[in-house]
């Protein structure tokens, strides 16, 4: 969790310096969800995320170097500088992308789950998206098909309360989004996302159900992003009081306090923080020193090579 937190803070600094371009959506405040999900998944499982994708990529094991180099648009980045912040990929670890069109990747997740079922494999797909995705058609069609075909997929709505700048009460007639599950014939669940242990247990239950052939689950996790929607958003649509109240439930602080309460040596935690800081520093240096993205890679990846089908 500290790795994600520090990575995102360093990304923001480098964005301000002009080292990172385009859109940059930070995961600060939501870390417990990615970390918990990565913990319950097996190597053979598949993960999809929106454009707010750094957290899950790092939690799944992508190196900070590979991630930071991608943000810097370098050939050593996880997508060789062709994807950027919104399109991280780590196929070896089953991380099948960062996707930029709201609602567009949910059907893809149903598709990888379809493959698992078609091939008799017990892999599970977990698909993350925001509360803003739950009103668009792509959500409805993916949920419909996953429910109809009882696919091994877990749809995780990270409800951070705002679809960009519009609060949930102005985008949905529902306060409890998890009731939508019923309309698709699937199990629904809803819980707070700041306690990593709770998230782990509840996502774990849905993943186990999917793996055992029990079909899909729609989970609504209540969370909060401490920064704006993207770097260009000062988040003036919410009050300082609201933000401070939410920060009092910081998932990173919560886990530290709990470890201290369990008798873990504070120095040991500080050492982890230092290691993380060093790794992030090294990642920035690596990104700085790496070669820029290559034109020949751009040209040669428009189409896949033919033959051997």
């Amino acid at each position, binding site marked *: 969790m500290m790795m994600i937190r520090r990575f995102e803070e360093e990304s923001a600094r480098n964005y301000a310096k002009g080292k990172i371009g385009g859109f940059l959506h930070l995961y600060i405040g939501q870390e417990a969800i990615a970390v918990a999900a990565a913990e319950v998944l097996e190597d053979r499982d598949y993960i999809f995320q929106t454009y707010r994708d750094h957290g899950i990529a790092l939690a799944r094991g992508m190196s900070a170097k590979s991630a930071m180099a991608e943000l810097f648009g370098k050939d050593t980045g996880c997508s060789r500088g*062709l994807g950027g912040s919104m399109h991280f990929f780590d*196929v070896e670890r089953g991380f099948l992308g960062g996707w*930029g069109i709201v609602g567009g*990747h949910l059907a893809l*997740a149903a598709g990888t789950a379809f493959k698992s079922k078609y091939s008799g494999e017990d892999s599970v797909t977990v698909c993350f998206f925001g509360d803003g995705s739950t009103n668009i058609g792509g959500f409805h069609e993916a949920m419909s098909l996953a429910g109809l075909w009882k696919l091994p997929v877990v749809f995780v709505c990270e409800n951070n309360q705002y679809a960009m700048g519009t609060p949930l009460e102005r985008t949905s007639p529902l306060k409890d989004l998890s009731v939508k599950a019923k309309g698709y014939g699937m199990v629904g669940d809803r819980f707070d996302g700041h306690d990593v242990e709770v998230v782990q247990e509840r996502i774990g239950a849905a993943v186990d159900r999917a793996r055992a052939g029990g079909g899909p689950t729609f989970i609504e996790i209540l969370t909060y992003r401490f920064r704006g929607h993207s770097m260009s958003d000062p988040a003036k649509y919410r009050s300082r009081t609201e933000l401070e109240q939410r920060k009092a439930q910081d998932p990173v602080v919560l886990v530290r306090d709990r470890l201290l309460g369990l008798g873990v040596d504070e120095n040991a935690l500080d050492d982890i923080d230092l290691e993380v800081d060093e790794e992030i520093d090294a990642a920035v240096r690596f990104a700085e020193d790496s070669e820029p993205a290559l034109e020949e890679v751009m040209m040669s990846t*428009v189409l896949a090579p033919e033959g051997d089908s």
Partner: protein
Amino acid sequence: MRELRYREALREAMFEEMERDDRVFLMGEEVGHYQGAYKVSEGLLDKYGERRVIDTPIAEAGFAGVGIGAAMVGLRPIIEFMTWNFSFVAFDQIISNAAKVHQMSAGEIQVPIVFRGPNGAAKQVASQHSHSAAPFYTHIPGLYVIQPSTPRDAKGLLKSAIRSNNPVVFLEGETLYGVQGEVPDEGVEELIPIGQSRLARTGTDCTIVTWGRPYYTVLAAAEKLAAEGIECEVIDPRTLRPLDTALMVESVKKTNRCVVVHEHWPYGGPGAEIVDRLQREAFDYLDAPLERVTGLDVPMPYALNLEDKVLPTEGRVIDAVKRVSYSK
């Protein structure tokens, strides 16, 4: 060689490729129990069962996306759109996902998928059901776009499309399903390469490039012109992206004039692309401006007399050939 109908040729291609490769499956509306809205998939469910011939709800964006996701992890889906008109609600899946993920992932993820179904005007199905979809999809890097005119090309190109490692938009002719033509005998496998034009008729006086439904209009017009002493050479690109202009350029060097005939609207699209390329690649050989005979620049009307005016006609093709030939 034997004679097959266009729809039978497509059906054979799917049977053969499903027999060859368990990763290939067919998904779409009415493809299974109904035996296909246009009976292209007739018999597939009986042979391969519900695991591999999958009826879907009416949810094009959903099942197109499911196909793309399945292809990303190694299956080889054939996604049938009942017609290409309905692909527009799945446009984002094809454009933003299927066409992009190979490059976005720096070449790590392939999408071996075929989207197929009937395309273009049928008969009096009016404005929303008569789209010629090629211009929308040929614009997109990361896609192949194939539009076969004959049963033989339909079969050989669909087989190649299914074996391709890239997303393929496969535009069938809604009015061509009943057309008969020669197809290699059973047991003779023919894979027609993606991206190769075909010489359909030899001639010396004018080159006509055409594909899809107007292909037959052009062949009929060419016979009438021959009776008047004008011999047309007809070239069918078959694949619209990537576009093979080599045969066209060779032909124009011989005939020194060219007419491009297509069903889609005149603004942009593969018709305009072909004209653009030929004026550059064969500029020194042209004795007349390149002409196009296109679908008229209007939404398709319902009334038969008006629809007949909108689609390219023999008369318009003959007039265009005579104009570029400076003949009356």
